[in-house]
């Protein structure tokens, strides 16, 4: 992974996202120890405090858990949490875009909702 310092995303966010991806790829499995902040600093050429912040973010989201004196480990439902998070993030973004586009095209709210309902029933019909 290459850190993009000019990016608008803070480095610690880039770090946590990278670890999430590694977990999704199953580079780290459940209860496996992940990189320490120093290993991350060394690997990514970043300040260890920044790496620690990235790890802390994952602990807060319960993707990782901390064993005192031993390091950070992958939580049992880490994969699900990541997937859920990404899903909701992606969906929210898409919805935002749809709303914005509808706004541009002067599509009213009820019109938009009915469009969504049509789309959903179409999907249901295909399944049946």
């Amino acid at each position: 992974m290459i850190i993009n310092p000019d990016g608008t995303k803070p480095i610690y966010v880039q770090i946590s996202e990278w670890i999430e991806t590694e977990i999704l790829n199953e580079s780290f499995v459940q209860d496996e120890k992940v990189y320490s902040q120093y290993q991350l600093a060394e690997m990514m050429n970043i300040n260890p405090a920044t790496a620690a912040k990235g790890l802390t973010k994952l602990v807060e989201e319960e993707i990782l858990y901390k064993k005192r004196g031993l390091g950070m480990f992958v939580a049992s439902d880490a994969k699900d949490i990541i997937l859920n998070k990404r899903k909701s993030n992606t969906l929210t973004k898409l919805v935002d875009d749809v709303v914005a586009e509808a706004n541009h095209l002067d599509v009213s709210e009820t019109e938009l909702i009915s469009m969504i309902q049509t789309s959903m029933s179409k999907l249901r019909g295909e399944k049946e």
Partner: protein
Amino acid sequence: MKAITCTHLTKSYGNKKAVNDLAVSIEENKITGVIGRNGAGKTTFLQLVAGFIKQSEGKIHVLGEPPFNSLKASANTIFINDTMNLPTSLTIYEILKMGNEFYPNWDMELAERLFDYFSLDRSQRHDRLSKGMKSTFNMIVGLASRCPLTIFDEPTTGMDASVRSDFYRALLKDYLAHPRTILLSSHHLNEIEELIEDVLLIKDGTNHLHVSVSDLKEYGIGVQGESTNLEAWLKGKDVFHKRELPMNKAYAVVKKEQLDPNYKQAGLEVAAVSATDMSMYLTGTSEGGIDDVFK
């Protein structure tokens, strides 16, 4: 424990105050980037920290005592600068050996390895080195001394890109192995952004902002839209930067916490601001940029 604390720190040369009422406290074992425009007072501040010069007013404590004329501070501090004086009658290798004599934590093995890695000539003299080589050599002295307080003032002057990245990598690796307080000054943040933990922005000789790099990245937010809409929306907000764009549009940077949700109604778009840009806007002299010159 704090490595450096200063209050009301002022250094004047004649009427000019190079450092003006600066207050800061820097924690131990952190890498802090000291960022500011040329002439903002970075070097003067670092010289005060190194005990090279004496403050005109205020207080400064480094590693527990005022650094000026303190033997303890001198033994535990090293100041690396591209104009630093080193004896020209000694070869650069002899200078390394001298450093070994003086600095208690000096790592001669590291010094020699770096020396060989950068293929420096042992019998060369400091004043005959090219600018880049000189900076490389100074950097080796700074790293090998392993001083609890290591100050690098614009250390990469004249270095080419690969040496530069080697230097930052070497600095990081040595810091990981031997954590210590490091001050790293630069006028552009982007180069050292990944490396440092905190940023001390110096403007007009004083502490303009002292935050962590991640906080700096989330400190401001860019807003873009129709000029008139933007103007109206900006009222009562702290604007760090503003510039006109084509088609009657404009771009402004404001404090992130002042981003009220009604920006969407005003037809404005937002985007994050990189730490480098943010530091530039913060240390800039005025709201306007170079564009104002061409109006």
